[in-house]
């Protein structure tokens, strides 16, 4: 299954833009493994994953219409 992924901040710098499509993944653990292969600097980054705008704390199964976002530590204000 292909999942489109939104990226922000430092992660968007690494992945080269605001969104990307990751293929052949069914859950967020698989997504993270793919990201580490495609973008090795991601391995040393701390970030959260939001699925449909909610931050998830453990491995989460993904459906095709899900909105996945990679969120580096917030620095607003």
């Amino acid at each position, binding site marked *: 299954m292909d999942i489109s992924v939104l990226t922000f901040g430092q992660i968007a710098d690494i992945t080269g833009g605001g969104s990307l499509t990751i293929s052949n993944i069914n859950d967020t653990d698989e997504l993270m493994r793919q990201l580490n292969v495609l973008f090795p600097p991601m391995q040393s980054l701390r970030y959260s994953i939001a699925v449909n*705008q909610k931050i998830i704390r453990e491995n989460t199964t993904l459906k095709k219409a899900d909105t996945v976002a990679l*969120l580096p530590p917030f620095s607003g204000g």
Partner: protein
Amino acid sequence: MKEKKKRTVFIDGPVTPAFIADAIQQHSIKTDIGAHSIFLGQVRSDIINKQEVVAIEYSAYREMAEDKFHEIREDAFRDFSLTCMHLYHSLGSVKSGEISLFVFVSAPHRQDAIKACELLVERIKKEVPVWGKEIFANNHYQWKKNT
């Protein structure tokens, strides 16, 4: 008098003193207000590795951020006796010395206004998906870290 409708928090560029004055002025007709507590975040020209920060460029995961602002707002209305509350955050470039965050809480009594404002600032910094890119004079940049 509680304002609970979802509103746009993000504004393009800095929050100006005139904008703040206008927001304050609009509250003179709400004569049940006894106290306003206001927090303003201003861009600091920190020196990092001998390079001075000249601006911060803000970006956000906008839909999620608006939802989170809304949730934080609702929680404050639930937990404190407030008359109204206005939250504004900049997107795009804000120069050092300019204001990027404006939290404005009004209440009949000071303790509600002060405590709510403090809590709102902490939650906004911690929970809202906004990122600041610190731009140096030589056009290099680094991603801001909140403490």
